[in-house]
């Protein structure tokens, strides 16, 4: 922990370890991105990738990289970052590592929106994304309203989320049985979460949203940290408790829903990224920035792993994050149980 003070009266506290972790994660995400851009049916050496990205590549590689692979990787980075940040906010607000969007049913809500577009309207990719966005937002809003009772209490929030999740899952199950097999297969691929075939159309909206929401969330990071000590302490310290929660929860729902709309409900990134980030920084508090970069890194590495292990575009990235995340989740449960938490 280091204090930085300027003569003009500005002062900050810098956790050196956290800063190092963030720096390392950024580097890791960039390196993984470059490697991922080179990976695929047509292999491109890393040096060529870097050269092309800097604008000095040959025309063929430029097309493959700038038009096909770069947008896909950018979508991956943005989706990972949005999920990591959204997950960190949710876990901090519910004061529970399992209070993440995966378990609260936001993903299921987005899925319901997407399934309605796929199954009932045979919608285009854009319509499916729109459906997912609306579905996620409606679900987030419903959970908040249903869990609200003189404030939102962490446990009630999680349990209401589980209930909403079950309800939406039933709707999804029904929609799947209504679909013909072609639509059903398309739906299941979407439900797994995938970066295949993502292009600039997905990048821009996500980028704009993140550019607005990330700074907004960061200005609320300090009140959020105070809220971790309980609502009463929050009030005592002069935190506008409900406003902080509404702004942050709204941002988190938007981030998660937008990420889901772009890539499908990639499972477990929102759950694991904040937890891993916290273990790396060894710092209490929401760890928003580390969680965000951890999410981006995780998703890119998982996508690279699935391409290396199963061949290009064979297995969607969501399967890899799902299986890895599931194992991690079980480990978490055992550990937390030993520590007497949860």
């Amino acid at each position: 922990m280091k204090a930085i003070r300027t003569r003009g009266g500005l002062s900050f506290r810098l956790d050196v370890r956290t800063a190092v972790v963030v720096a390392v994660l950024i580097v890791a995400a960039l390196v993984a991105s470059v490697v991922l851009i080179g990976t695929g049916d047509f292999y491109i050496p890393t040096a060529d990738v870097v050269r092309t990205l800097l604008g000095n590549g040959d025309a063929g590689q430029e097309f493959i990289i700038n038009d096909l692979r770069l947008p896909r990787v950018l979508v991956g980075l943005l989706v990972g970052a949005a999920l990591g940040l959204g997950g960190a906010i949710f876990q901090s607000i519910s004061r529970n590592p399992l209070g993440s969007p995966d378990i609260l049913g936001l993903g299921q809500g987005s899925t319901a929106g997407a399934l309605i577009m796929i199954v009932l309207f045979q919608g285009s990719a854009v319509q499916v994304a729109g459906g997912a966005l609306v579905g996620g937002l409606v679900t987030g809003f419903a959970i908040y309203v249903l869990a609200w009772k003189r404030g939102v209490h962490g446990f009630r929030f999680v349990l209401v989320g589980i209930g909403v999740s079950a309800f939406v899952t039933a709707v999804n199950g029904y929609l799947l049985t209504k679909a013909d097999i072609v639509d059903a297969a398309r739906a299941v691929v979407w439900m797994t979460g995938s970066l295949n075939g993502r292009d600039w159309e997905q990048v821009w909206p996500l980028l704009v949203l993140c550019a607005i929401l990330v700074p907004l969330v960061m200005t609320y990071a300090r009140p959020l940290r105070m809220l971790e000590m309980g609502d009463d302490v929050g009030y005592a310290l002069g935190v506008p408790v409900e406003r902080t929660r509404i702004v942050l929860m709204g941002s988190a729902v938007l981030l998660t829903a937008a990420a889901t709309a772009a890539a499908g409900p990639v499972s477990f990134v929102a759950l694991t990224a904040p937890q891993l980030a916290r273990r790396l920084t060894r710092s209490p508090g929401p760890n928003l920035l580390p969680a965000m970069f951890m999410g981006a890194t995780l998703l890119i590495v998982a996508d690279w792993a699935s391409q290396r292990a199963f061949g290009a575009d064979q297995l969607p990235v969501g399967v890899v994050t799902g299986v890895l995340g599931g194992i991690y989740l079980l480990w978490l449960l055992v550990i937390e149980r030993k520590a007497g938490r949860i």
Partner: protein
Amino acid sequence: MKARATMDKQPTDPHTSESTDRQERAAVNRLVADDVTLGYDQRVIAEKLSVEIPDNSFTVIVGPNACGKSTLLRALSRMLKPSAGRVLLDGNVIQSMPAKKVARTLGLLPQSSIAPDGITVGDLVARGRYPHQGLLRQWSAQDERIVGESMASTGVAELADRYVDELSGGQRQRVWIAMALAQQTPLLLLDEPTTFLDIQHQIDVLDLCADLHEEQGRTLVAVLHDLNHAARYATHLIALRDGEVVAEGAPSDIVTRELVRDTFGMECQIIDDPQTGTPLVVPAARRVREKSAAGAGSAGAGAAGAEGTEAAGASAKAAT
């Protein structure tokens, strides 16, 4: 100022003059609950309750379970919005004040506080500086100094780098008090600060509160369970029952057998605390209480019970 306006309008109405009188005093004392009705959902805990916290006092609120003492404290610290009436801080309705401004005037040690996983004592206490900080002024030299002082005055300075999870209950409570101190508020509210602590830690914490009051001149308001602790440490005592003030004043003036019977429904005897001279409540012996319970309804038995207590009191006095 508003008070004056009402007075000018109807100077003759006895009710108004009484309430303006109260508001006059409100201008004197910094923290006042004025005619508040408190409750959760439909359940009303207290109606038309008026309480003043004398400046520079160590005020203790006592009463049986569910008498509304914690509810009153929550209202005084604006965590509970009264459904009628108002809580005034320095003459302003507390809900209408900016949250950070209140937090710089009025500190609170709540019952339910959560130490985040893996936080150190120093970090936790530092979080008490939040109301004094801004986006661009997050950790000034002054913040650092005050955090150090707060830890020193609560005796947790040497624990600064330890994790809060590792501490004992008594140490942890001191850390939370240090955090509330770092807030640097002239008023400090404590909700049952001694619950779940061993007796020596209870006394520790109360001694600390007394120091804060006497040496730093802060106004303290605490909810306490133990009547004897209250009588020993408080400079001003408020006894509540069923959401109503039964008595308030200096402990030596108001702690009587009748008060304990009215408030707690228990027969007792009051003697002088041999250490401090403050009132000490000694519950009546079982034999005496049974007698008075058996004869409940008939005045004679009650008197006999009282007589018995008196006699016991006399012998106790003789013994000392």
